[in-house]
């Protein structure tokens, strides 16, 4: 027992004197959590504080286009940057190329007339279907919105949307959805006005218009949590578990290369001639680094719970089942340490341990759902995902942090972790035996 204690004492001292290693194990993950959460939180808050700049070039002078611009502004997703109505399409493209804004919208001169014609066309069809007298359909007629235009010209909505190529497809779709929603609103309003006018030969009262258009049914978002007490998870709760696991597995840089360094160091020759099995050294490293991973988790969770709210980031709500949280953290740490030891046993040089260790963890994190949500992965990746220990760590943490689960709810994720740990330990034992180290 004293041998183990002396070895742990040695490992702790060596670790504490390795300033770069400590920065890698604690400083880098904290920085990573801080940066990624801030970025993701600003994406979550796009509808609110952080808006996307949208150039608006309105060639139309009609009321409908003004209504449309107001509706776009009202959505809250965009910061509107008006551009002179006389600007050409090329000048809009130029502004976007110079990143004055990432999106630009050009409203054509006949926008109001087209909407009005479309409304009149729809109204005519409605009247015809009711068996009422109609001058509508494809004919020409007055419109409350403005000019006269043939209803046949309204099939395509000629609003042009310019975007910078750096905008990702998912982001573009969100912007398009928001603009379509605004278009839908002005079209509906116009149809309603036209229909009312054609039936009553007077303008739709404002109060009735507001009643008809604004009385929308809202979606009530209900997060499905196991304890029924969780409200919508925030960016912190999505990110802290992921990057905590990432940090734990990155002990490979210190532990894996430390084992290789020891094997190549002169002290290893001496250790092999002493009446103590190298298994004691491996056990000591496991215990020492297990404590390191627990400390990493404690520090990152504490920052999420107490420091993040101070700097304007969402607070981390720690799960109520502390025993489950400790057990999951312990298993995640043990898995990370087992992985690092396995790398250290088989690597021949520190470069191999560091290079393979770091790259393999990034790959395991990617296929494990830490970088892209697992539900968004292609089906062919699902088998690979189940082989990544980081995936099971993340699922267990999400079960506690996002779903409000307890220990019994995360057993299904803990068991595969056990199996992976057993496999890694077995592989390391075999490697040590094969190299006559134990």
């Amino acid at each position, binding site marked *: 027992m004293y041998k183990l204690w*002396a*070895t742990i004492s040695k490992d702790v001292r*060596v670790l504490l004197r390795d300033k770069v290693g400590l920065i890698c194990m604690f400083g880098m993950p904290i920085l990573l959590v801080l940066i990624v959460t801030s970025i993701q939180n600003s994406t979550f808050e796009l509808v609110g504080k952080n808006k996307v700049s949208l150039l608006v070039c309105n060639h139309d002078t009609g009321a409908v286009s003004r209504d449309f611009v107001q509706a776009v502004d009202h959505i809250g997703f965009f910061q509107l940057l008006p551009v002179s109505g006389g600007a050409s399409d090329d000048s809009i493209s130029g502004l976007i190329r110079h990143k004055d804004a990432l999106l630009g919208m050009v409203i054509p001169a006949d926008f109001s007339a087209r909407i009005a014609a479309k409304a009149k066309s729809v109204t005519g069809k409605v009247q015809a279907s009711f068996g009422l007298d109609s001058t509508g359909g494809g004919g020409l007629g007055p419109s409350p919105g403005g000019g006269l235009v043939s209803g046949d010209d309204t099939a395509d909505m000629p609003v042009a949307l310019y975007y910078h190529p750096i905008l990702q497809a998912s982001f573009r779709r969100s912007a398009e959805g928001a603009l379509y929603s605004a278009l839908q609103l002005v079209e509906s309003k116009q149809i309603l006005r036209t229909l009312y006018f054609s039936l009553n030969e007077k303008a739709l009262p404002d109060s009735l218009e507001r009643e008809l258009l604004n009385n929308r049914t809202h979606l009530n978002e209900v997060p499905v949590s196991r304890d029924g007490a969780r409200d919508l998870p925030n960016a912190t709760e999505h990110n802290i578990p992921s990057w905590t696991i990432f940090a734990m597995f990155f002990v490979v840089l210190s532990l894996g290369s430390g084992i290789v360094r020891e094997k190549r160091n*002169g*002290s290893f*020759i001496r250790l092999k*001639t*002493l*009446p103590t099995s190298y298994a004691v050294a491996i056990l000591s490293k496991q215990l020492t680094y297990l404590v390191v991973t627990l400390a990493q988790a404690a520090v990152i969770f504490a920052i999420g719970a107490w420091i993040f709210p101070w700097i304007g980031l969402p607070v981390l709500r720690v799960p109520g089942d502390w025993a489950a949280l400790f057990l999951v953290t312990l298993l995640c740490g043990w898995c990370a340490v087992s992985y690092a030891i396995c790398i250290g046993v088989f690597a021949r040089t520190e470069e191999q341990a560091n290079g393979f260790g770091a790259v393999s963890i990034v790959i395991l994190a990617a296929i494990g759902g830490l970088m892209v949500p697992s539900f968004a992965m292609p089906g062919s990746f699902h088998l690979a995902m189940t082989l990544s220990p980081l995936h099971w760590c993340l699922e267990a943490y999400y079960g506690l942090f996002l779903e409000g689960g307890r220990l019994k709810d995360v057993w299904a994720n803990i068991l595969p972790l056990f199996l992976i740990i057993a496999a890694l330990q077995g592989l390391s034992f075999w490697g040590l035996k094969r190299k006559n180290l134990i």
Partner: protein
Amino acid sequence: MEMMNDPALRITDLSFRYPGQPPLFEGFGLEVPAGSRFGLFGPNGAGKTTLMQLMTGLLTASRGDIRMFGEPVIRGHRRVNRLFGFIPQDLAFYEELSPVENLTFFGAWSGLDRVTIRERTDELLTILGLADVRDKKVAQFSGGMKRRVNLAIGVIHRPRLIFLDEPTVGVDVQTRAAIVNYLKQLNSEGSTLIYTSHQLSEAEQLCDRVALIDQGRIVAQDALDNLLAAHRTEGLEGLFLQLTGKAYRDIDV
């Protein structure tokens, strides 16, 4: 079972070869009397380091028998591992730690308890002139100080047999003299020394018996005085050149 009159080390009919290479030792035999200061010399590539590794159990022979005080030398044989101390040519300790921390760790791995480690640490650091720097990181030490730490770790458990592979390489005259004196003191207290070095003048001061090996076989073995008299040479260097020749011994690469 250890016998009272067993030699410190007896090698019988030893054969060994590295994979893919011709045999380095075939039917090799050697006996090191208990209590002797035994020097093992030979040109580069003669097999000294390999023999040292076979004697300490770091390598395993394909045939033959090695016994230390009557105990078979087998890798991981804890009783045998307690009998000897190994001072390798490479500095074999943790430079991030102090001498006290190194001695505590290696003392525990040598099977000593906490109290004995503390006593031996104080004793060794005083004898080897390291008491004033006992808590400083070894990384800050001079080459000579590091060599003394290397020696202290190898003898902390009072081994009956001490293997010394170039223990004074790269040190100044004062440190060399201190180390040689301490090794003689250990020998007078009952430890057997097996020593290898290219410092033949130092070897003459330290060793009472020598064996010259070349190409995996012993070319001469006896008490140093007897060998010098038999070959009519004045020093070990002359004897060495007479028996192993003057040609370079570069290893095949």
